């Protein structure tokens, strides 16, 4: 639907094993500016490992991570990474949790708070600045974690099953909230999920991973027009894509 002039992130021929366990055989993928790309694969197929490598926490045995044309293999601190768990620090108020990446970067605490506070409305956290994480609902915690991720690095975000722990109703709410919010944010997102509907609804493209050792089994464009709403999920096109993905997994 859009043309992407800029390639933000390129992952080239990643290979990774843990001892005898070959997890990634040969994984290449890319992410364009403002694009939303999902990775789907069975549990244990190596999705989180790919994120660990892109974020620089792990070194691949082979392959490269290139961001904006520069080699970032094994270097942390460039892309933001949101884990499956919200990982909010229980001893910090929401405002301090969220502004943590700015403080780590060396910004003044007060300035960091002010900057973070400006996003509380967009992220549906208005009025909860001085609460502790325990006082938030699951959806709010996830949004707080997402805001923290966004404040760390807004241009490339890696989201590892961010909504997996939520109940179906909250998760669905979060999907439409995310679709609305991302329009304002100018971010490129790489998204891991087990949920095929979620992937189709949110993504511009989907990569399907094979079982371990992981390779890219197929790359699927999602030509659903934006803005997307609830009606999209009942269209024929949506169902055809879903059928196609299910068939790939059945093989």
């Amino acid at each position, binding site marked *: 639907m859009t043309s992407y002039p800029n390639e933000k992130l390129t992952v080239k021929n990643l290979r990774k094993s843990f001892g005898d366990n070959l997890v990634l055989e040969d994984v290449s993928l890319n992410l364009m500016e403002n694009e939303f790309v999902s990775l789907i694969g069975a549990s244990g197929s190596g999705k989180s490992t790919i994120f660990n490598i892109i974020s620089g*926490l792990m070194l691949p045995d082979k392959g490269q991570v290139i961001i904006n044309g520069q080699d970032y293999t094994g270097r942390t*601190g460039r892309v933001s990474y949101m884990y499956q*768990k919200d990982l909010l620090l229980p001893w910090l108020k929401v405002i301090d949790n969220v502004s943590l990446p700015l403080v780590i970067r060396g910004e003044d605490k007060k300035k960091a708070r002010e900057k973070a506070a400006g996003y509380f409305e967009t992220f549906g956290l208005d009025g909860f600045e001085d609460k502790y994480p325990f006082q938030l609902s699951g959806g709010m915690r996830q949004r707080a974690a997402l805001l923290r991720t966004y404040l760390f690095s807004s241009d490339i975000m890696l989201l590892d099953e961010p909504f997996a722990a939520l109940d179906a109703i909250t998760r669905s709410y979060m999907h439409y909230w995310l679709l609305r919010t991302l329009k304002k944010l100018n971010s490129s997102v790489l998204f891991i999920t087990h949920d095929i509907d979620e992937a189709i609804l949110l993504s511009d493209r989907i990569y399907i991973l094979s079982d371990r050792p992981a390779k890219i089994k197929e790359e699927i464009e999602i030509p659903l027009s934006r803005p997307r709403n609830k009606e999209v999920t009942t269209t024929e096109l949506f169902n055809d894509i879903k059928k196609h993905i299910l068939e790939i997994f059945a093989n």
Partner: protein
Amino acid sequence: MKVKKENSNKLIPLILVLLLVAVWEAVVRGGLVPRFILPSPIDVLKVFVTTIPDMKEHILVTLQEALTGFAIAIIFSLILAMAMDRFPAVKKALYPLLIVSQTIPIIILAPLFILWFGFGMLPKIIVVVLVCFFPIIISLLEGLNSVDLDMINLLKSMGASKAQIFKIVKLPASMVGLFSGLRIAATYSIMGAVIGEWLGGDKGIGFYIVRVKHSFAVDKVFAATLVVIILSMLLFKVITIIQNLSMPWFRYVEQKK
């Protein structure tokens, strides 16, 4: 609901203690044991009230020794735990020594300290440091080790330095453990000071107990023991209050459970 349960939790031990004290009182009143060997609880309370002015000076000395030793132990443990956390080699080298140091009976060490450092406060403070140090550093190290690795990785992915990770994640995460160690150490600190005074000195509750024991004033021994119990409980309570004040988030965690 919650409040009720908490109250009944406190009520049960209280009833038990009252029951035991009542039995004790009855046994002494019934003449089963002569009073000069075992005074009755009411006798002890009476003596406690009348001897408090005598004991006051000794209580202050004991408190001073206990608190000084306790504070030194906290500082020591913090520094050492930080070093052991940062440099695994330091931990490997010192951890076994820490354990071994705890196997030497304090009752052997204390007289040596008196021999080396005289009858003043110093040897008592050293004893207090020795008995407090262990529970504090062990709980601190355990706390530092129990930190969620994903939290550390998250901070690493944000480019945090080791010092930042320690300050933002590791230290706060180990606070819960640290405070349980501090509570144990707080009660040990009074005991340590009393043992030190018992074995040599001219001031403090421990010294006072020895003196009244020599004059066969068993009721005064009991009254002084009551002082030791009260001081230990007070310190214990103070630590809990500090914990609640310094970790408002911890109460929420507890409530959630």
